[in-house]
């Protein structure tokens, strides 16, 4: 197990290093931040002084070398845009993203388990058809549209919820719903498919023959055995949520790493962009490890080697 973890962490680190290198060079291809901080026709001497102050006057390879040395000491530089340490900016936004993703994922999984199981148990009946249609609709619904319609109905027309922001627990409802709606649809179909496979297997027939109640058969026996593919897909979806939920950030002005990354790109704030990529990358590596560990708990037959 430890060997496996060590190997996974090493491969994750190598992947992360590759991403950092790509982001470092690609972001600088977008141009210099000069345009955003100086008016047109600024004096060359002023621009030179600015470049010197932020190390932008050096050759790119040298800048990268300096960056790597600094990162090794935990220094990701100072945000040109926000005038504070870049890693501080990234770490300050990440908790909200993690909380939002955790809540949204939990709700998505719970709802998907119930609906998917119902659809599988009552296969080919009305409930199955309704669940299938709803899951296809929600998985293909544009998040942006859903968010705006949600604001229009629940905030403007019904005055039940705030339009945006994150200051109260009620302001979380629409963002969480927006982030969950797609995964609910996808996961419901995965649950349904996995449960159909399991429910047709011999040991389930055996359990029914022994007189176990339907609920016990489904939730104690079938669901546990159907869990593996559900956990794998849920892990992929959760990684996507960690990446930013950018739509939620833009529409609801909800804090999060996605909004920070978009802002860093538009403002050519390379230090913040690099720090954010590292934070997100590490989160995803740890999340994938967690998924692997959960799988071993759910199915003890799995051995991590």
């Amino acid at each position: 197990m430890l060997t496996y973890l060590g190997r996974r962490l090493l491969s994750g680190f190598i992947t992360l290093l590759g991403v950092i290198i790509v982001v470092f060079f690609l972001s600088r291809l977008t141009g210099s931040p000069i345009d955003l901080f100086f008016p047109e026709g600024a004096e060359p001497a002023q621009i030179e002084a600015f470049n010197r102050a932020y190390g932008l006057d050096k050759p790119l390879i040298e800048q990268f070398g300096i960056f790597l040395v600094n990162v090794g000491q935990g220094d990701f530089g100072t945000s040109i845009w926000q005038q504070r340490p870049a890693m501080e900016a990234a770490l300050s936004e990440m908790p909200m993203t993690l909380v939002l993703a955790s809540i949204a994922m939990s709700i998505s999984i719970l709802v998907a388990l119930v609906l998917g199981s119902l659809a599988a148990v009552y296969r080919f009946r009305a409930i199955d058809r309704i669940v299938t249609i709803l899951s296809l609709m929600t998985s293909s619904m544009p998040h942006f549209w859903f968010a705006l319609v949600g604001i229009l109905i629940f905030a403007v027309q019904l005055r039940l919820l705030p339009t945006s922001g994150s200051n109260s627990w009620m302001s979380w409802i629409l963002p969480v719903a927006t982030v969950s709606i797609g995964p609910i649809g996808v996961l419901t179909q995965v649950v349904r498919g996995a449960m159909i496979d399991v429910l047709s297997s011999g040991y389930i027939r055996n359990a029914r023959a022994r007189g176990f109640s339907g609920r016990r058969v489904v939730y104690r026996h079938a669901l546990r055995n159907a869990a593996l593919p559900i956990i794998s897909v849920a892990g992929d979806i959760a990684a996507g949520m960690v990446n930013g939920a950018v739509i939620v950030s833009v529409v609801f002005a909800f804090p999060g790493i996605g909004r920070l990354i978009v802002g860093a790109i538009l403002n050519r704030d390379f230090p913040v962009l690099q720090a954010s990529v590292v934070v997100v990358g590490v989160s995803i590596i740890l999340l994938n490890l967690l998924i692997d560990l959960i799988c071993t708990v759910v199915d003890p037959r799995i051995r991590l080697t």
Partner: protein
Amino acid sequence: MKLGILWSAVAIASAATMLGGTPARAEKSDKAITVVLAVELDSLDPCDTQPAQNANVVRGNVFESLTRVSPVNGKVEPLLADSWKQTSDKTWEFKLKKGVKFHDGTDFNAAAAAANIMRTQGGSNFPGLACLNSGQIPTPVTAEAVDDLTLNVTTTVVDPILPLRLSYVDIGDLVSQTKPDKVLNPVGTGPYKFVSRKQGDAVKLTRFDGYWGTAPQIKDVTYIVRKEASVRASMVETGEAQIALSIQAQDATDDDRTVTFKDNRIFVMRPMTFKEPFKDPRVRQALSYAIDRDTIVPAILGITGAPYYQMLGPQVNAYLPDYDSAGAMKYDPAKAKELIAAAKADGHAVDTPFDIVTRPDILPDGGELVQAIAQNLREVGLQANIKSMENTAWREFLRQPFPPEQPPTLQMISHDNTSGDASFSFPKYITCKGINSAICNPEIDKLVAAADVAAGDERDQLYRKAAEILYKDGGFIGIAEQIRLIMLGEGVNYKANPLSGLEVRIADVQLN
């Protein structure tokens, strides 16, 4: 100095409403409001107040300048300076207002004013400092305090509009103006003082009780950002905010909660005159004749735009009052085709494809408008392709030097000039060496150079002559005059004016 400003009917109506209908200032209260913006402020430094996202929050609220442009008649009027006079060709003496305090209790004086003027220009005393306001002082000036209330400003070239330029230099406290570091806790002289800023969340201001002028009614202001226009409008509908800026036409209400104003922002096209198919002025004129502004502008922009033919708005001294009625190249596709054919007959490669360079956020519904323009151009035989890109990439195409391998472009620009003087536009956009210029006409250069050092009516006439040649040459083609919208909550009174795109003074907002 006269700026020779002419006003549109909307501006006149606004001014009349303001003068006749402005309610008397209400007493100080403990009321608070929330203002929702489209773009987050990115600097609290007094030397960065030029862009709208910063100006919306701090100009006229936290910071003030020595002079200001009147929103009523466009003239330069006193603010922190009581008066000024030109003591020689290049030297101006400003007498400053007595008894003005900064928010930290220190006195506003000539030393502070001088420090701000010098720091805004940057230079070796402020290594690494980049000030967005520095572009408003194109040639260096030196500011010196003669005594506490007397300031001398010396220019390096004759500059008849120096008092106007200083309306763009906001004044922060002396201590901050001696350092190159960006100001994070702004201290100004305005009616509101800075309380806090949480990046990505809100900026808070509170009334400054030591303000030298009339105390505003509203006590506390919170600025928040919502990128989506419909969300901004929704917040005012639900009462979460009291003022929403940059509303779109589809979110406007039919009552007086939606306020319109023109801030002299014109949507224009700039052909690259150095390359085919735009080398010949007849093809450039054809661009104007090809576009059916009277149809596409109202249809697409609705109440947020009106057809327009010039580069500068009615407030600016280079505006040609008779151009629209006589002289403007209005929709005439047959004429456009005739001009193109004539240019082709003379050997010009009019079939050369070109890129219409635009941005998705150039103006509300700008994407649809540009598509309609492209369609109009194709209908007269021009090979137009649309290239929409984000701001930083768009700027690469805007500015000289243009790489030789760059294809010919028709750059879409949303240009504003709230100063009233064409010197803030013409040198940069239409002279041979102008950083944003794609035209080189020696006659225009001569007129602009002469106008820059002239004063009064002579200055206005020279700029107008330059404008006449520019439009006849097809150097810049006006498409639409933009009309901006602000949404107000119930019981909120605010008279928008031509400066409201930059400066929304909370002291001018009254609550019932």
